[in-house]
């Protein structure tokens, strides 16, 4: 039998549970984002676009699979 006072307990417990679960998810996802960072392209996208358009105008049926920048 649940008493009237226990509804308060249920609500406090539920609120804490929501907080705890989302805190765990926040920590885990923070770690995941650090472990698997977004790889930024080493070559400027403008350079990629320029090379692609130049190549396709010279060799219309060619397909560019790799662009390497040597500094």
């Amino acid at each position, binding site marked *: 039998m649940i008493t009237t006072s226990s509804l308060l307990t249920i609500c406090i417990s539920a609120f804490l549970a929501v907080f705890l679960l989302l805190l765990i*998810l926040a920590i885990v996802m923070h770690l995941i984002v650090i472990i*698997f960072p977004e790889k930024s392209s080493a070559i400027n996208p403008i350079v990629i676009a320029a090379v692609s358009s130049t190549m396709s105008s010279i060799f219309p049926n060619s397909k560019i699979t790799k662009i390497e920048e040597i500094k």
Partner: protein
Amino acid sequence: MGTVNQLLQQSGFANLTWGNLVMFIIAGTLIYLAIVKKYEPLLLIPIGFGTILANLPLADLGSYGNGIIALIYKQGIRTELLPPIIFLGIGVLTDFRPLLGRPMTFLLGAAAQLGIFVAAIGAAYLFGFSYREAASIGIIGGADGPTSIFITSQLAPHLLGPIAVAAYSYMALVPIIQPPILRLLTTKKERYIDMPQTKPVSKTAVILFPIITGIVAALGVPSSAPLIGMLMFGNLIRECGVTERLRKTAGGALIDIVTIFLGLVVGATMDSLHFLNLKTLMILILGILAFAFSTAGGILFAKLVNLFMPGSKKINPCIGAAGVSAVPMAARVVQKFVSDNTDGTVNPLMPAMGPNVAGVIGSAVAAGVFLTLLG
């Protein structure tokens, strides 16, 4: 002549009650709001028409009767089938990147569930509802229609109509409910806090998110698994990039079909016998209180967090209000409010989307906890 008399007596006209007529007016209002004001039309149109069907005397088209609507109610709502399918579609349609880019906003989504618990306590202590009824009413504060329907169908099915209508109506009224609370609880200086864009999130992290969240939430609160599990499955088929057909179906035809059934059935719970009573009025009052406290919870928690943050990392407390999970309306309301109050210099739409989508998870977890403790 006798036969004609008998026919007339068995017609709906002869059996109409004042209650039916009042419900027709309420249904007409819902349909009007949907068509003219564009308030949640995908839901208010089926709910409004379902209400009309349920109040046609002798037609037996109410959810609590024995007709075809009752069949959908028994097989779709009482079995917990339809709300999780809606969550599948929501998962497909939701981009969680703003949340992953700023994981701290998970906590704002949790804080913005405050109204659920305040309303539940108020419902039990002030208005004398049973615990199961109070928990169902409180979930209105989660600003999440399917979650409200999911928990109410289990804990207080006789209150399904008013609770669902309150949840969807107040979701539509977020642009009216939230700005005064934002104005009351934030200073001009706080509204000017401009949060930087987050770093892009990798595809690997985006794919791992639904898998990890599904497992962690279902292990932590198993009762929330039908909602969170389907939400995360939907998000996985959105992000994995190899299930285009499933993504299109779940986020398009499937969610539309289920919305039609869900709306009609919820509307059909609103026959005059079940709807026109004092409890409905109390639920509407508690529902708006739940929304207000949830909004305040998110804002105040953001202000609390700011006490411990260095100057450059402070968050705009207004985004806490977006933690109520009316996606994406709450985030848009916050963005508009901040923009209007900063002469357009601060536009925190993406920062507000983080707590906004976290709120979807938060309200589903809260529902799961209630089901565990009261189910």
